[in-house]
């Protein structure tokens, strides 16, 4: 699927793939390729929060890394504010980096324990080639104040802070260069519930104040619902459903999205997730089912699903990759390979 890149898009990817070579078998005798991101297209508009929902092994984090070119895509194009970043030279890309930032999942390992808080927070400024010390100090102090850290903490080490405060340091680092685009890779999944609430509200406030675009990556449906304008659901390296948060989460269409939502415990304890019958586990990238990747677990799967991979196409006000909703494709017999 290819489409003209709209000027509203801050970040967009076309048919993006990431390929890793893995060795399996005795002493790594077998070389195989796995694609944790397989031909994904995606766009994030100016000022919106787009959430990628997926379970472990869905490729959602790799997608986030590939957009920022922290891993090199094997195919496809990434366009950030009008520039194809695959064509940039190393130094040009580095200068651009403070405008496209990331907050990591683990607030412990993502902050260097040997640096002062101010050196961690100011890193993107130095990275973009800024030299003016006074300016750097001022921006650093401002970012720390914005995330609710006492600027007097700037000369302390991260081990003196709790998990929630550490994540604030990580967020301060991401926003210090006034980014247009921030990837949030499960920023609250290692935090306690009460701290998660603080961080989610902080992120939403920062986003509405700055007008930046966020790509939020999470496995938590409730968090996705709370923060997103639009959501995209990933399964086994592919996007299976994408649309407005109210449509996709409020009224899911893809069988995987439906199953996923039905597994989420809610305040309504009479609705038992234990009664949900989903068989099997997500497939491993070395052993993908033929056709639709959810076909081996899907209760609606029929012949075509096991032969041909459905493409993401619009249906019911969003895009779904499922033959249940693309009747014309369903009626044409799939070529037998």
């Amino acid at each position: 699927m290819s489409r003209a890149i709209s000027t509203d898009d801050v970040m967009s990817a076309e048919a993006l793939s990431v390929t890793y070579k893995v060795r399996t078998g005795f002493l790594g005798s077998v070389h195989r390729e796995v694609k944790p991101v397989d031909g994904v297209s995606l766009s994030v508009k100016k000022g919106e929060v787009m959430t990628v929902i997926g379970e472990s092994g869905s490729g959602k984090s790799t997608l986030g890394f590939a957009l920022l070119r922290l891993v090199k895509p094997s195919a496809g194009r990434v366009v950030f504010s009008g520039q194809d970043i695959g064509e940039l030279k190393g130094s040009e890309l580095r200068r651009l980096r403070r405008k496209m930032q990331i907050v990591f999942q683990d607030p412990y390992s993502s902050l260097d324990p040997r640096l002062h808080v101010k050196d961690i927070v100011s890193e993107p400024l130095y990275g973009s080639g800024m030299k003016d010390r006074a300016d750097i100090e001022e921006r650093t102090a401002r970012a720390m104040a914005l995330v609710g850290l006492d600027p007097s903490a700037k000369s302390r080490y991260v081990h003196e802070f709790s998990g929630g405060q550490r994540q604030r340091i990580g967020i301060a680092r991401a926003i210090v260069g006034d980014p247009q685009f921030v990837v949030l890779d499960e920023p609250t999944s290692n935090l306690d519930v009460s701290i998660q609430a603080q961080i989610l509200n902080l992120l939403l406030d920062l986003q509405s104040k700055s007008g930046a675009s966020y790509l939020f990556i999470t496995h938590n449906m409730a968090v996705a619902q709370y923060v997103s304008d639009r959501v995209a659901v990933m399964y086994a390296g592919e996007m299976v459903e994408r649309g407005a948060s109210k449509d996709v989460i409020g009224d899911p269409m893809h069988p995987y999205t439906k199953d996923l939502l039905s597994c989420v415990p809610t305040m309504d304890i009479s609705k038992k997730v234990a009664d949900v019958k989903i068989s099997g586990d997500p497939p491993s990238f070395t052993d993908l089912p033929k056709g639709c990747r959810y076909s081996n677990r899907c209760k609606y799967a029929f012949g075509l699903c096991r032969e041909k991979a459905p493409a993401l196409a619009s249906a019911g006000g969003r895009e779904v990759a499922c033959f249940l909703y693309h009747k014309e494709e369903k009626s044409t017999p799939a070529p037998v390979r």
Partner: protein
Amino acid sequence: MSRSESSVTLSIVFGNWATVAGVAILVAFLVLTALATWPPAYHLVARYSPDTLNFGSANASPSLAHLFGTDREGRDIFARVVAALPIDIAIPFEVVGASVGIGLLLGTFAGYYGGWIEELVLRVADLFFAFPSIVLALTIAAILGASAEGLRVFYSEMALIIVGWPFYTRLARAQVLMIKQMPFVRAAEASGLGKLRIIRTHVIPHLASVMVVYATLDMGTVLLLYSVFAFFGLGASPPTPELGRMVYDGLSALPGNWWWSFFPGLTLMMLALGFALAGEGLRDVFDPRLRGQR
């Protein structure tokens, strides 16, 4: 290091008698060496000059007048041991320092950049690993030092560095491969920092602690290896005293004049023990498992 962290460090260091003993031994030797090399303070350490011949009191067994006894020429063995300390302590520092420096540089670049640089560095290191280090070092030192007597110590050090760097290179590379995967290094890349700056601010400081531990543990080994060199006559030229050479010279007098080789040998052992215990202690200090978790 913040106050709370350094207090943890101190409690780990002093919570362990072995570390205290190691550090105490090293400090005692360093003080002794410092005093002995500063002429005005020399008399505080030893009563006699290491080179004064006094045939009247030759072959004296240990006594209050001559703590470690005297040798065939009547020289005070205690004074000679003290005089040997500067060179015997300096050599491990120089050799290990150079080996660590080379290893850190090559290993870090090999690990961080990968590709052909890594292949080349590792293959060369493997080449040196393939030979037993002591044999290789002795051969190199003998070949280099055969002609130039005045440079023998230097060549012996060179030989020890040549067999020493491959280990540190491999160690540094393995550590860098691990550090490179840490999310904070990813974060630094995402911030647009260049590779050299990432190596300088994030990679090397993390490597340094591990390297320091291994280096300290290695000091004793190098000290003993160098004594082997001196033992075989590949050290400094006489009459410069050297512990390894003194052990060798005393062997012919065993078991009669046992103190000729016993006290230099004991001193060597104490020094090596000091390095080993201090190294173990440092390892505990840097071991994150012993730090306050959470």
